[in-house]
């Protein structure tokens, strides 16, 4: 039974989930401090004094979906582009020169611009010099994923956005992404195709966070049982300002985010916990010591963000139709970001700070020979 089928029958019951619900219940400062101490010790025991680093590489910001909160949403009149293979390679070489040995290819959903063949070709290009290539793109069928696995990708990340189907529907009024269950079962299809790292998460702010957290934990528990050979990681994407101008109905406070990270760590000691540059520096530094095991650094959220690649193909879309740039925009405009970065520190500054915090930054934690 897939997770969407399981969830449709009601939230699963287990000792771990009951424990997790207690951990995310409202608590006073002393209880939060005790939870943080437990989380920190658990993280150190299982992951040591290390922090794995990765970089997102946006290959396209084209999108056919309307998602009310997303900067790439179809009807947003933003500057869009899709990188050529040479440009993807140039961006990746830039990141590799900075030290990154794990790269996450990110794209909006657009079958014409971002096909599985294109992603497989990108992966092949990168694998020549990047040991670990993952994708964060629109959900696919198992067979489509298999092409990308065969090209050498080892990880897939897909956020459910919200685990509440009632909240999900009005946020996704148009496009293939409307299908809640199809998206929810995506990690299981990816696993069946041979991906060995799976990342999930909820876009925090779309629904009351405690309810969301328990469903997320249920998803973790399901994947640990059914996709037992995959290395599982949870991300904490908290809604940031974007071109959509969307204001989250259920904003998550910093304190809530800390409680969520610590609760997941204590309930699931061995899973990876990932924090992106959506969050501000002080929060990332603090959470690095509590439960986070993987971080991006110096990240850009637009295609061509690292090298300026892709500007020659830049265009604006108006209600899904491509419109050439105005004369004044040619040569000056840049692709629009998916969301604003909360931690703008260069990667070198983040690395130095991690060392100050007593954490060894790990660039390479995978070898291409393993899944050759």
């Amino acid at each position: 039974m897939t997770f969407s089928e399981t969830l449709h029958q009601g939230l699963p019951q287990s000792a771990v989930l009951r424990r997790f619900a207690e951990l995310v219940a409202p608590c006073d400062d002393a209880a939060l401090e005790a939870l943080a101490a437990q989380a920190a010790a658990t993280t150190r025991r299982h992951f040591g004094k290390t922090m794995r680093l990765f970089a997102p590489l946006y290959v396209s910001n084209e999108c056919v979906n309307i998602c009310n909160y997303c900067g790439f949403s179809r009807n947003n009149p933003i500057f869009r582009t899709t990188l050529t293979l040479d440009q993807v390679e140039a961006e990746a070489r830039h990141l590799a020169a900075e030290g990154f040995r794990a790269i996450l290819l990110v794209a909006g959903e657009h079958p014409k611009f971002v096909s599985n063949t294109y992603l497989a070709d990108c992966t092949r290009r990168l694998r020549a010099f990047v040991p670990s290539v993952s994708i964060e793109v629109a959900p696919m069928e198992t067979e489509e994923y298999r092409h990308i696995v065969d090209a050498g990708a080892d990880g897939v990340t897909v956020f459910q956005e919200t685990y509440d189907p009632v909240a999900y529907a009005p946020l996704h009024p148009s496009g293939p992404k409307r299908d809640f269950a199809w998206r929810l079962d995506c990690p299981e299809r990816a696993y069946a195709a041979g991906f060995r790292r799976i990342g999930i998460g909820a876009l925090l702010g779309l629904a009351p966070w405690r309810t969301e957290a328990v469903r997320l934990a249920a998803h973790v528990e399901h994947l640990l049982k059914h996709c037992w050979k995959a290395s599982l990681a949870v991300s904490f994407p908290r809604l940031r300002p974007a071109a959509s101008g969307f204001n989250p109905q259920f904003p998550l406070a910093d304190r809530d985010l800390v409680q969520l990270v610590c609760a997941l760590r204590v309930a699931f000691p061995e899973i990876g916990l990932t924090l992106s540059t959506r969050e501000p520096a002080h929060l990332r530094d603090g959470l690095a010591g509590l439960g986070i095991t993987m971080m991006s650094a110096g990240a850009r959220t637009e295609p061509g963000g690292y090298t300026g690649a892709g500007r020659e193909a830049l265009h604006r879309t108006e209600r899904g139709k491509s419109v050439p740039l105005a004369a004044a925009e040619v040569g000056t405009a840049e692709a629009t970001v998916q969301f604003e970065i909360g931690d703008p520190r260069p990667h070198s500054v983040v690395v130095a700070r991690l060392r100050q915090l007593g954490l060894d930054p790990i660039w390479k934690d995978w070898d291409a020979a393993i899944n050759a």
Partner: protein
Amino acid sequence: MTTPQPPPQPLVIAGRTFRSRLLTGTGKFPSPEAMRAALEASGTEIVTVALRRADLSGEHDPFADILTHIDPARYLLLPNTSGAMNAAEAVRLARLAASAGLPKWIKLEIHPDPRHLLPDPIETLLAAEQLVKEGFIVLPYINADPVLAKRLQDVGTAAVMPLAAPIGTNRGLETRGQLEIIIEQATVPVVIDAGLGAPSHAAAALEMGADAVLVNTAIAIASDPAAMAHAFRLAVDAGRIAYETGLASAAPVGAKASPTSPLTGFLRPEPALR
């Protein structure tokens, strides 16, 4: 006046002699400097390193430079196949390491479950057989399974490395009963690997006859890794000396006086029955 004691017997694996019976890992340390200091303090002579964290291209990648922090003249570098999910992947990694100029010794680790990192017995046996045929000195990481340990010895592994508890748990000799059988039956050195969280655990492992232990997490995540490495060194020596000397047997808990009808009473029949 104390009489000088002879040093403990050396550890011999595949014909090579080591004074130290403490093997160490290289993961989880807060910095390469802390790792180097801990290796030094531990007195170790065998250091294992995950190939997935190393640069095998020969280009000395400065961002995957773990090998550059370990002096190969001083330590035997024991590459491990952590990350491999099956025999084919492990064999491929081992070959790659050998062709990159690393010693042809391999710590065979195949754990398809990334959560508890428990080793796959079937794939481990398949890979061990293949690697032994190719001339590798194979030290397989296994669950504390005596039959598997024997099967691996039969295919020619140079040691067996059963776990005390799952990796990174620091829970000590949870598998003690099974480990005792493995040690009793072993024809190659038994190196107890994984789960040893305190020097007392390591000492106990040596006292029960393990030939060596491998410790990583407990040293790497200590507030002072070098100090903890030194503590493990002392514990391993103490445990080994105690084993070689022979521990006095302990009285069973709750031992009572002899029963009124002794079990061997039949040896002294009642006079009337003679």
